[in-house]
């Protein structure tokens, strides 16, 4: 019988040692994994459409007859560079499209982007495990403290729109901020509430209970929506506040933009909010929202771009604190912002100003990253509209150019 105890003790000892070894290796591995030197670039069969012939000739490293002059194992661009990014799900389709298109132009560059959520992206950025991160919200002061010298580069613009399902009423129901706050606070409960009727003359609204739908998961969409309601309604600001998830006074929660869209589609007399893309894709009726100038604005790529244009005037420098940046906030009191849709927001890429702080970054990768970012804010914007993203207005592109010029590697400016 006792032999079994002996074996048991031995096993436990072995397991502990194995766990220790594993842990050690793992901690080593996390510091070096993302470099993935064997990134095999997929040679695309399409003829290379790039205007500038890529300086790096072949996607496959041919065994050259001349011996390689550099004995260092650091990957050079010719061997292929993998850029790893992670973060918000909202810009994922766009960044993914960029990755594919950029790979056609520069077959040796492979961009991997994982849509794990803004929170996860910021965390990985702070832990320096990715080359770039994406977030729907700028870093808060506390987050910026943990990841000093982070640059914010707005890459696209999103708009959050109220969607509703009232039989026989198509898109275009008008909402003021006060009405939306009232509905989401549970103070306006019927569709034929006098406040709604007052701004929608000529539309016969039903005497039906409003079914409120919100996001159940934490999301940048919710952050934008609650920011808007906080600006409009002091009561909202005090009792609910703004955040990626909040303590909702009323309503059902749907998971993701898709979940909210599905719930609204399934539930008569409901109201919800989604990214504009999802309203379009699901053919949902969406409302017009009043801006500070007093106009009811139809959500559209143009009205979002206009909103970004007004906000661009006040943007801080790329390396300053962006924690206060919000198109929603800057439009809140701006009675001059004609034609701007008020619930609009930037989506950002976050990179370090000095790229050598990343343990898995070499100069070649840094240069590639900067080239990719430069391409993304210029040529990359052409792919935005097809995917219902809003191309950056030229004012913001100019701002970004200055920001990208700040990026350095070992103190050396990478883009001139």
């Amino acid at each position, binding site marked *: 019988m*006792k*032999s079994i105890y002996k*074996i*048991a003790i*031995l*096993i*436990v000892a*072995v*397991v502990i040692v194995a*766990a220790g070894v594993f842990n050690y290796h793992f901690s080593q591995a996390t510091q070096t994994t993302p470099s993935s030197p064997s990134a095999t670039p997929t040679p695309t069969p399409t003829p290379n459409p790039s205007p500038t012939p890529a300086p790096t000739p072949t996607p496959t490293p041919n065994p050259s007859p001349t011996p390689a002059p550099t004995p260092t194992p650091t990957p050079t661009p010719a061997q292929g560079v993998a850029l790893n990014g992670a973060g918000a799900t909202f810009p994922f389709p766009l960044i993914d499209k960029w990755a594919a298109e950029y790979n056609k132009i520069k077959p040796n560059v492979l961009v991997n982007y994982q849509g*794990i*959520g*803004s*929170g*996860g992206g*910021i965390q990985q950025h702070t832990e320096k495990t990715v080359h770039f991160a994406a977030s729907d919200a700028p870093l*808060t002061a*506390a*987050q910026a403290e943990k990841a000093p010298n982070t640059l914010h580069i707005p890459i696209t613009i999103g708009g959050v729109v109220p969607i509703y399902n009232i039989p026989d009423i198509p898109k275009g129901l008008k909402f003021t901020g006060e009405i939306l706050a009232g509905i989401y606070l549970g103070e306006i409960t019927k569709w034929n509430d006098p406040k709604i009727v007052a701004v929608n003359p000529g539309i016969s609204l039903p005497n039906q*209970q409003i*079914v409120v739908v919100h996001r*159940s*998961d*934490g*999301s*940048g969409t919710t952050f934008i929506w*609650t920011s808007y309601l906080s600006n409009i309604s002091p009561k909202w600001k*005090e*009792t*609910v*506040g*703004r*955040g*990626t*998830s*909040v*303590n*909702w006074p009323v*309503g*059902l*929660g*749907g*998971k993701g933009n898709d*979940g909210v869209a*599905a*719930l609204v589609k*399934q*539930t008569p007399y409901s109201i919800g909010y989604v990214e504009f893309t999802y309203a379009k894709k699901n053919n949902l009726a969406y409302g017009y929202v009043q801006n500070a100038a007093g106009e009811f604005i139809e959500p559209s790529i143009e009205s979002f771009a206009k909103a970004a244009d007004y906000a661009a005037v006040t943007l801080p420098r790329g390396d300053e604190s962006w924690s206060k940046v919000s198109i929603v906030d800057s439009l809140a009191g701006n009675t001059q912002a004609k034609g701007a849709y008020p619930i609009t927001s930037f989506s950002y890429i976050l990179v370090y100003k000095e790229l050598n702080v990343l343990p898995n970054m070499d100069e070649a990768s840094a240069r590639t990253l900067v080239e990719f970012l430069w391409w993304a804010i210029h040529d990359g914007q052409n792919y935005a509209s097809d995917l219902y993203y809003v191309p950056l207005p030229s004012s913001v592109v100019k701002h970004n150019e200055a920001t990208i010029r700040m990026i350095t590697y070992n103190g050396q400016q990478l883009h001139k």
Partner: protein
Amino acid sequence: MESSRKISLFNHKLNTKHFSHFKWQINGDNIFKLVGALFASSILLLLGLMIYELIKGSWLSIQTFGLDFILGTKWDPAISRVFGALPLILGTVVTSAIALLIAVPISLGIGLALSEYVPKKFGFAISFLVELLAAVPSVIYGLWGIFVLIPFLRDHVYSHLQTLFGFIPIFSGPIYGGGVLTGGIVLAIMIIPTVSAVMRDLFSVVPTSQREAMIALGATKWETAKTVISYARSGVIGAIILGLGRAIGETMAVTMVIGNKFQVWPSSLFDAWYTMSAIIANELLEATYDLYVSALMNVALVLLFVTLVINILSRLIVWRTLRLVRGMAKE
């Protein structure tokens, strides 16, 4: 007196002899024993690590809220940053209980039918299909719940329930489609395969002599079936708790149909609610500060604890019954 001493001496000798012969030899048998034990203990190690990590992750929340976390009724990540999980715990337990109310009679029927009534040939087909249901991924149940079950229940079931029983508070109030009852129904569908499979196994190990005796006494088939149930009753309870364990841990399908509304108690069966696993799945990705993440970890810890206790309980009961019944059968 003397003989007993002799025996003990003999025993002692045997032990030392056994020890002196024990030697580590590198042979296939020992290596196999070691490797097998290693694999087996990896499960324990995994569980231990999981508990350790969860406690480590939720330490901040445990320090900040202590017991108030379990008794608190407020979940406010935006302004006051106070987290309390009582509504989640209640939501989890109540939806699981509703699922059991629906699933247990059905599973009992399936188990009995398969062991007592249905001819073997069909029995195989039916039990195969029932087990196939267990293999359907839960997100598919969720999608089916949103697009098929919710509209159907809202338009054809709940509205009638309300007109018939609307005077009872739990059947009053607005009907959204999704909600507590819908969550319970989806959960019930998901646990029926597990529960009914265990019940079938339990009923089929009830000795034939029991049935023969009942029939010899002139009992009807139904009376015989009742004896079979009562013979395996503690095992049946175990099977039910096993289903409860599964229902409590279920995430995706429930998240998609329950409505995700954080409140202590819903106004009716049609109202929305929230569960522990659902809030983790929903909020962890965008939890933006340490205390928030820690609070979600704390929810996970509570959930793990509840499911562990329930699963251990059910396993013990099922094992005991199986052993008891088999032991009796041998006699």
